[in-house]
């Protein structure tokens, strides 16, 4: 398995509170991604990073922000959590270029009550 660690793995939080999920990699890959997984939607890209301090939006970025201050860490923040953000969040990494494998973390289960 690729060296990807997500924390926390499970979290229950209240509506309106900020939440930060962390993705840590030991592979020194340039690209990192955050996806959310929901029934009937598969996985959808939230944000991605192409280098330290370099990020861009994905398909479902509203309500989320990200930061990458070091190559190995990519943080996903829900500024004010809502029930619609209850989901499973997956981090992924890749070295880029066509044909390269994209590796996924184990997921973070977030419940907003």
């Amino acid at each position: 398995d690729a060296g990807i660690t997500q924390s926390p793995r499970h979290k229950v939080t209240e509506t309106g509170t900020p939440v930060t999920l962390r993705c840590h990699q030991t592979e020194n890959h340039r690209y990192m991604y955050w996806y959310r997984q929901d029934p009937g939607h598969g996985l959808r890209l939230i944000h991605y990073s192409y280098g330290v301090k370099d990020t861009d939006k994905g398909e479902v970025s509203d309500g989320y922000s990200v930061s990458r201050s070091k190559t190995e860490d990519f943080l996903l923040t829900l500024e004010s959590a809502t029930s619609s953000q209850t989901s499973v969040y997956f981090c992924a990494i890749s070295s880029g270029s066509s044909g390269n494998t994209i590796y996924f973390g184990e997921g973070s289960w977030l419940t907003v009550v």
Partner: protein
Amino acid sequence: AQRVTQPEKLLSVFKGAPVELKCNYSYSGSPELFWYVQYSRQRLQLLLRHISRESIKGFTADLNKGETSFHLKKPFAQEEDSAMYYCALSVLSIQGAQKLVFGQGTRLTINP
């Protein structure tokens, strides 16, 4: 716009029977397609990609550009094949990131 469609949410077959999971895509460029498998509450694992054309765990998939399909097949299903399967299309961003567009997933159940 890029799109991946997996028409079957659920698929149930008996052990030893052939399996085919359907995937259709919409993409204006040259597609790069993957199949990922997710066992119960675990991470997504790459099953295969069309570029390598290799067979993993007995599964194969052929890219058909005319029909814009990338169906996953296995001649003889095994109980350990029960899992969620996702078809995904890779779209390169201008920064070189591989953004994956996923289908909705097909939950495959192999009955003994």
